[in-house]
């Protein structure tokens, strides 16, 4: 029997959700009997092939995030927004209080301890969006896994439901936003 293919990525996130995913510890062994990973920081595969489930950590802060998100949407049958940043922008969205220019100036020109002050503008750097945005504002999202980060139990609950062919239903006691 073919295994369920899962792809994961971290956009404007901190990889904390991925670390929390690994917190399922020895339960990973049993999970891996049913699933295999496509594109993911865990496999270092660079592009996403056809998958059953895509897990997206982080919101949208630059053009590359949007590009990657669209690649996942095009390839994943079920796309899940993982964590506070994917769902509402999270901590990175706190920059939305300020103009993008003043953020860059604070970081690269006027910040304490900045040497050789200049705002990076290499063509290889993805352009920043004017505001950090949650991912459901760009593509259709099938399910949401809140938390900062979501606990390993939350991942197992939702993946367990999907593996059993059920519509995910996160138990209320597992719902938290912090």
């Amino acid at each position, binding site marked *: 029997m073919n295994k369920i293919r899962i792809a994961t990525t971290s956009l404007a996130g901190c990889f904390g959700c991925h670390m929390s995913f690994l917190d399922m510890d020895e339960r990973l062994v049993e999970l891996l009997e049913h699933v295999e990973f496509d594109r993911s920081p865990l496999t270092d595969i660079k592009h996403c092939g056809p998958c059953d489930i895509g897990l997206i950590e982080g919101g949208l802060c630059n053009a590359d995030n949007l590009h990657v998100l669209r690649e996942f949407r095009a390839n994943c049958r079920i796309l899940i927004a993982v964590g506070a940043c994917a769902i*509402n922008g999270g*901590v990175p*969205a706190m920059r939305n*209080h300020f103009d993008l220019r003043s953020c860059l100036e604070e970081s690269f020109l006027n910040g304490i301890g900045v040497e050789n002050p200049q705002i990076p503008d290499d063509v290889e750097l993805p352009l920043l969006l004017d505001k950090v945005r949650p991912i459901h504002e760009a593509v259709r999202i099938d399910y949401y896994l809140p938390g900062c980060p979501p606990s390993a139990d939350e991942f197992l609950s939702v993946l367990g439901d999907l593996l059993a062919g059920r519509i995910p239903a996160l138990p209320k006691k597992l719902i938290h936003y912090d």
Partner: protein
Amino acid sequence: MEAKAETAANTINIDGQEIPFEHGQTIMDAAFAAGVYIPHLCHRPGLTPHGSCKLCTVDIRNRISASSTSDRRRQTKFTVDADSRSVSACTTPAAAGQQISSNTPALNEVRKTITQMLFIEGNHLCPSCEKSGDCTLQAVAYHLGMLDGHFPQFFPRREVDASHPTVMLDRDRCILCELCVRASREVDGKNVFAIAGRGTAAHLIVNSPSGKLADSDLETGDMAVHICPVGAILIKEQGYEVPIGRRTFDLHHLGEAGLEKVVLAKTVYRDE
């Protein structure tokens, strides 16, 4: 028989449960006294009901005994029980024989949508908020099973007032429930807060010559400081005295009887 008739005359029925009430009580008062939880954000026993958050919306079936065929709701495309009417439980007086629906999938879905709109309208970033775990808005959202904000985020830019030596005002998280406005006016006798503006421009203002908290009469012991259901009004330098995981709604469910009184009592105790 007479006694029985009298009892029936002084009860309302919420989701099939007979609940006694006294003259002058609202539906929320009667439910609260009977330990029946109706979700709410802008209500606190002891303060004048405000009826603005609409989370406590319930359906009353026989409020009008017979509706005529000219009832407009009969002509809409939605299936509406024309004999039922939606009201705010916190402002509607309890009346004998009311048949009330509250904890229904349809009403809870509407409540969840209202809560989502409150979240996307402000800047409610729980991971960076020191009220997380003690926040009623967050707890209501958990209770309703809210997973996401659904609507596009507003990301409004709102003013922070950190001028006061012991109290901080972060309007990003204000949901305009007016609990602080009422507490200051009715309990503290100070009138420190008010809401100005309309629609998405509505915002909390401070009654002082400069408009800053530092120049107002606000003191740490005031009920207005402690009553905020979200992280808009915070007491400085004690945000993490109780660790995440050991906070009010980590240990208690919103619907627990007497919880709101406990919260108030605790804050009074802290100030002493």
